[in-house]
């Protein structure tokens, strides 16, 4: 579904991505692991287009989308849950969700999407009129994911959705991700610091280091390699 070929990008004159290539199969959870600062977020942002690629190609459903602007990518069904929350804090939960249904295709299905999102996160339904900025960290994370689902994606890229959450909430986030795959049929590209939980959830894993892909394989293969675990994952 997503095929990223030898992309390069960075900030100013500093190159961060040194031609990593990854593939995400339809209906799978693909996980991108690696220590802090190796370029995981940069890769997601480059795929999405908030950072312009310097080189390489991005294919989405066989179509070259390397230089397609972000708003068109959203319309094509690619969603990004960016690192940090990037919520609209002075808007209510409902207004935040409505913004997710900003584009035409999403707007046409707004009611369905709301229903879906409320089934997935019943707590949000009770809080529609609360200002997003006044919610707890975990609830805010739900709003961010829910807002991304409102865009009606087929591919959703999540950048550390469990960052800063208590263990119980981390588990909830992972359960939600499983549901998104199994019940909604979404394809998921996931960045996680939490390597163990991530290895549990994923169908396929990439390990990134200093802007390149150092290892890839099924979770069992990655877990089976003491070398990879020690060198890059610290588990």
């Amino acid at each position, binding site marked *: 579904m997503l095929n990223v070929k030898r992309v390069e990008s960075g900030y100013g004159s500093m190159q961060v991505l040194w031609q990593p290539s990854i593939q995400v199969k339809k209906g799978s959870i693909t996980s991108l692991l690696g220590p802090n600062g190796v370029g995981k977020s940069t890769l997601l942002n480059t795929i999405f287009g908030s950072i312009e690629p310097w080189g390489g190609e991005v294919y989405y459903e066989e179509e070259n989308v390397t230089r397609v*602007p*972000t*708003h068109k990518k*959203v319309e094509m069904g690619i969603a990004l849950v960016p690192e940090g929350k990037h919520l609209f804090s002075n808007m209510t939960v409902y207004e935040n969700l409505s*913004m997710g249904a900003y584009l035409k295709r999403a707007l046409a299905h707004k009611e369905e999407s709301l229903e879906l999102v409320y089934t997935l996160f019943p707590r949000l339904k009770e809080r529609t009129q609360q200002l997003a900025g006044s919610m707890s960290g975990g609830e805010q994370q739900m709003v961010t994911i829910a807002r991304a689902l409102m*865009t009606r994606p087929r591919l959703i890229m999540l950048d550390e959705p469990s960052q800063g959450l208590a263990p119980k909430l981390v588990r909830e986030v992972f359960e939600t991700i499983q549901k998104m795959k199994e019940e909604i049929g979404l394809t998921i590209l996931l960045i996680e610091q939490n390597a163990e939980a991530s290895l549990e959830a994923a169908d396929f894993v990439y390990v990134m280091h200093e802007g390149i892909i150092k290892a890839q394989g099924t979770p069992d293969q990655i877990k089976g390699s003491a070398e990879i675990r020690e060198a890059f994952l610290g588990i």
Partner: protein
Amino acid sequence: MVVEQMAGNLIQGLVLGAVYGMATMGLSLIFGVLKVVNVGHGAFIMVGAFIALLLFNTLGINPVLAVPLAFLFGLGLGLLFYYSVMQRLIKAPELATLLATFSLGLLLQEVVKLLFGSEYRGYNWAVGKIDLGITVLPMSKLYACAGSALIAVLLYLWFNKTRAGSAMRSVVEDSEGARVCGVNVGAAYALSFSLGIGLTVASGVLLTMFIPVGINPYMGGHYTLKAFVIAVLGGLASPYGAFFGGLVFGLLENGSYTLFALIPGVEPFALTRFFSFLMLLIILLIRPTGLLSEKRT
């Protein structure tokens, strides 16, 4: 006597304040969406004042019609400056955008001076006046006040009730968040910059009702300062906050003028300017996010 004088001046202040507020909305809009401080703000007001003057003196077009024409001219000017200059500076350090808007302001001043000279000019749109007993209000000022309020309401409705407006609000809140919702953030920047400039140029027309002989290429600096105080009063990033900031500022300016005039031996007009600075300082000290700011943190 003093009370009557005060009341009269406060009414004048409220009328002028509405126009001040309208003249600051563009500054707040641009700051809110692009996080760019338009240091050349006053020069765009000056351009509007010249548009009013020229249309009136050469074509006999009255200021009511000049407002939408100035707005359209400002939209165009904003688009031109956005795509030629501002666009590539959005991600640059703040100093770059400050210098850029400062230079654009200077550029406008010099172009206008080259074309029309630097003497003080004015025009007189005589549409009568009404006597309120305690003070006399020219109808032209009342129209300017009503026009300002109308524009503020329209902007409010556009911001809060339309799809484009909600996109704009989302960019104000969090541009990354807006981007992942599918908002074309680049287009929102261009639109809000040109809309901000359009509003500012249009406000220049309205302000001419208050300065019968004060139109000059360098008149803008004075308004830049006032707009900064008003924008801070109104919470910086909120255009209608700015409108209310303008009302408060107009009241304070005229009120303080009346009081300063009671002190023997002082020149009240000079003191009101000092008073603006003082207010800016005090507000920044006690509420750096602005007095009417909606930010609930």
